[in-house]
């Protein structure tokens, strides 16, 4: 029989660490995109340096999960919470890595101000960040519906990535003079697409914890609870896109 009060304390502390992780990753993402858009190389370097703290936090969260599994032998919803924690920890850390990778493009993009803003990348960044934030909220509130919306949004980001990819390739084919910069924009697009994938993974893990249902590797049409019509994208408090 688990010692409930001690297990509860451990779980509260674990959730606190994950919330901290989610916050830091979200800040890194905002900083990375602002560094790119504003050509702010110094801010980009801060993001690269900040990744170490996220890596350290990943290890701490994993240790805490291992401790709880070893000492409390959790079952049912507690066990699913632990399985979720281990998985979303990795997803957050990977998003942190992509933020670092995004920032590494800043120096190159600083030479061509405005080129990034002319693409759909700021829009993609907005959507990915909304997904990340909603995934974070879904985690904090154990909200399976919010989580499902995140999962549905991933398709939109994938579509934008495909569009952006095609546009950038076309620019190259048309003999754009800054083909190197376009190559950097392609890596930005891929990184944003991967961030939204990780946000989707996080949301799937949350649904697994709350309902015990594993939504991975299934189409949305196989999920009876999938939101049919997504409301328009919520305006982020900090929007990367210049569109009205």
């Amino acid at each position, binding site marked *: 029989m688990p010692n*409930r009060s001690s297990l509860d304390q451990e779980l509260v502390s674990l959730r606190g660490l994950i919330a901290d992780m989610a916050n830091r990753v979200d800040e890194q993402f905002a900083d990375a995109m602002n560094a790119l858009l504003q050509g702010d190389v110094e801010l980009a370097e801060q993001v690269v340096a900040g990744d170490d703290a996220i890596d350290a936090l990943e290890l701490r969260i994993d240790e805490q999960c291992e401790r709880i599994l070893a000492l409390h032998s959790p*079952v*049912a*919803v*507690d066990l699913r919470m632990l399985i979720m924690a281990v998985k979303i920890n990795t997803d957050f850390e990977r998003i942190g890595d992509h933020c670092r990778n995004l920032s590494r493009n800043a120096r190159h993009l600083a030479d061509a101000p405005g080129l990034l803003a002319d693409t759909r990348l700021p829009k993609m960044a907005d959507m990915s960040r909304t997904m990340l934030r909603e995934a974070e909220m879904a985690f904090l509130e154990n909200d399976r519906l919010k989580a499902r919306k995140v999962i549905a949004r991933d398709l939109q980001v994938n579509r934008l990535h495909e569009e952006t990819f095609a546009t950038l390739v076309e620019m190259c084919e048309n003999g754009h003079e800054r083909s190197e910069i376009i190559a950097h924009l392609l890596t930005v697009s891929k990184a944003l697409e991967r961030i939204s994938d990780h946000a989707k993974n996080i949301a799937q893990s949350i649904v697994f914890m*709350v309902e*015990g249902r594993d939504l991975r590797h299934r189409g949305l049409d196989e999920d*009876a609870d999938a939101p049919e019509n997504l409301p328009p994208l919520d305006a982020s408090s900090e929007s990367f896109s210049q569109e009205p």
Partner: protein
Amino acid sequence: MPTNESTEDAPRTPPPASAEEPSANGRPDASERPDTESSAAGGEAPTEPAMKPKLNINDLHFWYGDNHALQGITMDIQPHKVTALIGPSGCGKSTLLRCLNRMNELIQGTTLEGTILVDGQDIYAENTDPVMVRRRVGMVFQKPNPFPKTIYKNVAWGAEINGYTGDIDALVERSLRQAALWDEVKDRLHTNALDLSGGQQQRLCIARTLAVQPDVVLMDEPASALDPIATSKVEETITELKKDYTIVIVTHNMQQASRISDETAFLYMGRLIEMNPTDQLFTRPEKDRTEAYVTGRFG
């Protein structure tokens, strides 16, 4: 005494939907999760439906005087499986176990209603001999209780008084081997059983039960008085025994239930709340009350 209402569990539902949720699709669980009431009552859901149950318990009620200890238990117990009965103290799990071989009727002032079939035969029918029932449905108790006699005599005794005419030496060896004790005692069969360690004594009691050649073995907390190593030996023995026997075990140790049993039944206040394959019951219990119990939130 609690009312019936308080023990009835609502079907497990996910947290409430928020306003913008498209509710047309309904609850995610409605189509997939079987209704426990029907799965517990009909016994059709948890295991392979083709298998004929070894024990069939139907609307079993049991009273100690005025105390209504079992309130309408209906469940099937499958052959060659380990079925664990779990639940907080006083939930009726030991009472249920003792009903399965008519041990409870040795207690004054008790009343039983409902039926228990072993291989389709009503063990409480008027023409059924309780001694025969206990021979077919053996029992191992919480504390090892060997007779103050030799190891050999402990195992042979039950068979001898039952008029066993076969080779007693072979029966003793077979029973001790099945109880995973033979290698440890084969050179000292004629020494006092009370000189064995606690874990060995418990396995001797298992061997003694097996020597009478039952079909079903009931175990009431068989490892609760043992240290971890002896516990693990007894657990390994139980896992081995299900090849030849049907096992029903009462345990307070939920990790033990999850380690060794195939099916788990959760009882609460004399009622069966949920019976399901053990891996399901400990990962995705159907009922909120089961989840609260296995995660230690109550009980």
